[in-house]
């Protein structure tokens, strides 16, 4: 029983931030940006008219680097979450569907991967494979599929014995067809919500790896590496840390708010109880 109140901020603000992030990431390549151009007379300059977020320690425009950083975080998030979504859902649905030993082994593997707290395994993997954006994507996907697998398995278990699935089985429909046409559509809503929060998590994870020097390599900008570079000049140029941090905060906050809204709209909790 939610009140039908009009909450413009709660819906429009996240939508606006995410749209800006999306379009900036999409068109960053075709914008006339010179994120690597160094203005040696402007090193560590605070915000001013022509560069409204100031310059960094090499005299590069922070606003332009934020734009390219947006592309990095967006691409990494989309790739990692897509790979994790597909891998995790496939594994989870298969485990629940076939059951038996297959399920037991899958659950054990999931438990083992969950035993590595947070992005620790991703840090170790990308550290050992060598820094770089591709390795970061691989490392984050290796960690990311687990959440989807667990959720897809639990959801599939609850609907496996529903009438429409049993009917399809009785009609002799193939397993793949049942999975794609009769199970996936029913369990899609919680998976999409999980994906929303996973995007927020991946944005932070990518920035964390880049902050540790394990993600994007210089001179390519990432929000995380911008904070790392800025931390050294905090006393003279606090804007170097404040701008990228604020950007991460806004994007992650917006995605989480959007996820909450989606969860309320799709009413997942009451569905899971059935």
């Amino acid at each position: 029983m939610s009140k039908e109140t009009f909450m413009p901020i709660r819906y429009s603000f996240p939508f606006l931030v995410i749209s800006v992030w999306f379009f900036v990431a999409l068109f960053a390549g075709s914008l006339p940006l010179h994120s690597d151009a160094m203005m040696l007379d402007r090193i560590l300059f605070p915000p001013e008219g022509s560069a409204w977020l100031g310059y960094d320690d090499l005299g590069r425009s922070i606003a332009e680097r934020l734009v390219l950083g947006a592309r990095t975080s967006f691409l990494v998030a989309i790739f990692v979450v897509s790979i994790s979504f597909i891998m995790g859902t496939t594994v989870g649905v298969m485990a629940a569907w076939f059951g038996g030993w297959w399920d037991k082994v899958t659950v054990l593997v999931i438990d083992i991967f969950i035993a590595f707290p947070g992005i620790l395994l991703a840090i170790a993997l990308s550290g050992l494979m060598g820094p770089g954006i591709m390795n970061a994507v691989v490392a984050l996907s290796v960690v990311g599929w687990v959440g989807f697998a667990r959720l897809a398995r639990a959801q599939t278990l609850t609907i496996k014995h529903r009438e429409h699935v049993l009917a399809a089985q009785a009609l002799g429909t193939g397993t793949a067809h049942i999975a794609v046409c009769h199970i996936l559509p029913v369990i899609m809503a919680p998976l999409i919500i999980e994906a929303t929060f996973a995007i927020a998590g991946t944005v932070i994870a990518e920035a964390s790896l880049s902050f540790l020097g394990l993600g994007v390599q210089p001179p390519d900008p990432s929000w995380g590496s911008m904070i790392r570079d800025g931390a050294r000049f905090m006393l003279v140029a606090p804007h170097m840390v404040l701008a990228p941090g604020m950007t991460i905060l806004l994007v992650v906050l917006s995605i989480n708010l959007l996820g909450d809204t989606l969860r309320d709209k799709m009413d997942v909790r009451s569905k899971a109880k059935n």
Partner: protein
Amino acid sequence: MLNYLGSRLFTALLVVIGVMTIVFMLIHVVPGDPVEVMLGESARAADREALRETLGLNLPLSVQWINYVNGLLHLDLGTSLHTKRPVVNILSERIPATSLLAGTSILIALIIALPLGVLAAVRKGSIWDKVAMTFSMLGVAIPNFWMGPLLILIFSLWLGWFPVSGKDQFLSLVLPAVTLGTALAAILSRMIRASLLEVLDEDYIRAANARGLMPSSVIWKHALKNAALPVVTILGMQLGALLAGAVITETVFSWPGIGQLTIEAIQKRDYPVVQSCVLLISLCYVFVNLLTDLAYAYLDPRVSLNE
């Protein structure tokens, strides 16, 4: 109960073996030849062979695995490639710092989250609830590696209250612990609120209220005790986020713990140390979760009946 205990311990054992195996495999994900990466391309063939033999990389994979697990059972984690010291010694020097940081962070998180979560649940929909949930939203969205520099900027550089980094004095602990603690408090206050709201709907709360007990006594003695069980489980699970966050926070504040050691070892390509750090943090996490699960089963008789 015994059944549950047995199956839970058995799963934990399998997970530990799995974690060991993945950590063991980490050195094999190094692209190309790990020995070449460690020594550089200009190294002589004899040096490479010597290192390969020291690491045991010339043996078949299965023998390497058995040797590795056998070493772990005897607390032999190998030798650091960089300092040539046993990894066990290096780790044991770093453990107290991380334990101190993690313990203080949990304390700070509880001090913030407990009143906030209770207040938000009891006064649901009020301004307190909104403040608490906004805090929670912000706390989840602010990454450790930004919170840390922000705190340094405000409290070390501008106000001069706390040292910027290191672990030379007691006050050095405050900023990293607050960084980690607030992140945990954000999640915890949300969980306490949700868990308490669920309990507040129960009949025994209505009965306690009907008997005319003081509202504060109903909340603290009747509701919170029952709401505490899921919260403790979540706290155990969140310890993972805390430990992973410690890797970043220790790097930000140059706090000489396991986390900082992990990053240093990655930068120096000191593989045995990286492996051991990851293994130690993960096993610690597995162990805590096993303990919370067992404690839960002991305190709540309904759990053991399911198995």
